[in-house]
């Protein structure tokens, strides 16, 4: 059983006036990689501030139980503004936390985060992306049992983002460290995180496994945190899926495919490709109703008026009775 490293019991924070930035929250965070996802202003940073101890809860309690397990320190934090030390150079930032025996490791990290040629610069002379990379490198160099990152890649250019993220997750897994981070990006959750916490308006709306959220989300809103989803309420199932259902059904883009079919009941109104998936607006012939579908494309391209059918991962299509 995974150890619990944080336990929040009714913990929360006030905002301006009587508003609550974070409503009373009771969650447990365990060893492993935990993602915190939510829209801007939802309370992600407030939650991370509570976990690190940077802010004390205005109500409730936050209990921390981190086993150092041979690491140099319990926890290290990379906040959204970097939290850098303005009078120290890049090299000195890592030297402070690395100690004498970590020089080689910190040099390696400087190389990996492409900061070697900036080692003599101070934070005021670095770009935002470089400041973010330095903040992450410093946290990793500190060798804590738990890493806490607040939107670690938000300022990093897209060409470096995948590489840096792979380094961060790879380091955490290799050294058996726990990682708690906030993000907007589904691609930094799926395939990386063990658990995910969804937060909206200062309230936790989901706390559980990534897989369950991806494949069987409790609501369309929560489902959307892990990317696009084709969500069908029971009334829509018969129209679009050709079958009835008592509860909503959801299909991720890779679970359905739009195929051309002369006998298909659906027609293309609009079709486009956004780089990751196809976005199609389809019209149902008999009722005239339309809706948007997200699917993974296999290179097919459709034009307005084309007749299509939707095929599901299990091989059935919307035209099949009771699939």
């Amino acid at each position, binding site marked *: 059983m995974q150890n619990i490293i944080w336990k929040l019991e009714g913990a929360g924070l006030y905002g301006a006036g009587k508003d609550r930035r974070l409503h009373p929250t009771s969650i447990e965070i365990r060893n492993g990689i935990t993602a915190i996802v939510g829209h801007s202003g939802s309370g992600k940073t407030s939650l991370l501030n509570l976990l690190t101890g940077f802010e004390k809860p205005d109500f409730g309690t936050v209990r921390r139980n981190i086993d150092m397990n041979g690491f140099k*320190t319990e926890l290290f934090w990379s906040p959204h503004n*970097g939290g850098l030390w303005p009078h120290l150079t890049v090299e000195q930032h890592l030297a402070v936390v690395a100690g004498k025996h970590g020089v080689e490791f910190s040099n390696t990290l400087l190389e990996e985060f492409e900061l070697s040629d900036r080692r003599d610069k101070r934070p005021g002379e670095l770009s935002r992306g470089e400041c973010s990379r330095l903040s992450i490198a410093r946290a990793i160099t500190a060798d804590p049992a738990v890493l806490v990152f607040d939107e670690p890649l938000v300022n990093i250019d897209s060409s470096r983002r995948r590489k840096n993220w792979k380094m961060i997750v790879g380091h955490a897994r290799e050294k058996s460290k726990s990682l708690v981070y906030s993000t907007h990006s589904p691609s930094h959750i799926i395939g990386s995180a063990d658990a995910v916490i969804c937060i909206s308006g200062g309230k936790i709306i989901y706390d559980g496994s990534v897989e369950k959220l991806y494949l069987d989300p409790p609501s369309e809103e929560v489902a959307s945190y892990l990317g696009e989803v084709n969500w069908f309420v029971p009334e829509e199932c018969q129209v679009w899926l050709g079958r009835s259902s008592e509860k909503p059904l959801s299909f991720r883009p890779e679970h359905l495919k739009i195929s051309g079919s002369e006998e298909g009941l659906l027609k293309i109104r609009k079709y486009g490709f956004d780089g990751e998936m196809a976005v199609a607006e389809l019209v149902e012939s008999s009722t005239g109703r339309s809706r948007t579908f997200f699917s993974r494309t296999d290179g097919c391209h459709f034009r307005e008026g084309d007749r299509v059918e939707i095929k599901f991962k299990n091989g059935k299509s919307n035209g099949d009775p009771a699939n």
Partner: protein
Amino acid sequence: MKVASALFSAKHASQKKSGNKLPHSKVRQGLTKREYKLTNKIIFDCLGILPYCILVSFLVTIAGRHVSRFMHACEIRGKIIVFCMLLGIYFVPAIAVGCCWSKVSYDLLRHPPLNNIFYSLLISMKLLPVSVMVLYFVPQTISEQGKFCMELTGEYSKSSFSRILFAIRNTGRGFNASLLVVFLLAFSEFDIASFLSVKHWTVSLFDLNAGGLPVIESVKLCIFPVFIELTLILVFLFFYRNEKWLKKNEASELDLKKRPVENYFSWIISFTGLIMLMMLPLLALLRNGTGGFSLVLDGNWFIKETMTGIIFALTSSLLAFYVSGIVFHRFAHGGMTLQKIFAISTLMLPGLMGTLPIALVMLFLFQMPGLVLLRDTPLPLLAAMTLFQLPYALFLRYAFSSIVQEESVFIAESALHSEVSRKGAAEILWRLKYAVKFCIFFIIFIPTYFDISISAVLSPPTMPTVFPRLYNLLHYGQNEKLSATILLSVIMPVAIFLILIACSRIIVPILATEEKNC
């Protein structure tokens, strides 16, 4: 009229002398001729000095704007040098400035406007550091990018009035704050005005009070000048009541273009101020007092009164530092609510009125039944000094918090837990947290220690402080011993502070690491 009528007491309604008839309206209000004359004198002195103060505030703010822009754009080393020069200008005590320049002022006495201009020039140099600090740390309500977007819309170029209003509301907040603060300091200034025999309401009032005018009447005479100050402050607060007070590092990048003319101007004006207000006065004291150092310690009053002054200023600085910390942490974040405005105004406004009004009001309060028993204790002096320091302490806390991220300090504190990073983290904490606190403390301590008016009015009879005595002695002329005494009184606290900082530099990191070890 309401202000005038407040100055007059009904008790004196019956006092009239033949041949000295008062205007009928004043007789109805029960005014004595003496009160009428004194009130008019203070009002006229206020109105007489007002144009010079307005001129000073504009000139200083315009100059300060260039210097602060230069500081924004220049490298860290240049910033530190200019900052130290400005601090040097600000810290020089009025008594040293007065000693050096009183002879020039004496020659100009036959031409009062020229004397006032000369005084305004000295005061402008003295207040330049204040303006630079305000302009540097008070952020605009709009970023440079936001300004540019506004220009792109073409909306605010339609009329010059809308441009002016836009500038006042958005880009002009720091400018207006500097105008206000410099005006308040110039309008309530006493020390240098007294040495240069300037016709200033503070000098007139101080002389009247020292000459035996009852305290209640002295306090009443403060009403008109305080009314002017309060009006300006309330207008400013009202105008900017809805603006969120962004931290400096939350605002987008400022205008960081390097302007060569601005560079030269900034260096020249900083050096000029340093020479006129620090180097020349201190050199004059050194030249006059070289032979007097050995005479200073005759009689033990010097050490006793200097230490008394240091202790009072230290104690009030600690109190002001502590109270401002509570206010800052309670109200630092978010917008200006009514509650915030009320709390800040109550605690901060008295200090902005000037040292003399605070001293006289405190004197009056401690002559009332119930408090009169405490009149001869250190309490009135400490209370007045603390009230004076509070607004500056709060502003400095705000200013320094805007250049040091709380997250950076927290991470350094967390790094103390690791044996590997403990030493480095302690050094970082010294720099980001403790040195900053020392800086704030030092900046509020020094002017309070050098102040003359509060100490002169409120020092307990058995605990006099050094500067009022020196001020009185200077009116009889300078000599070797006096110059040496002034120099030593100036150097002593600075030396003590430097020793304290040097010791703390070593001790604090050790204590921080010891605490984590435990």
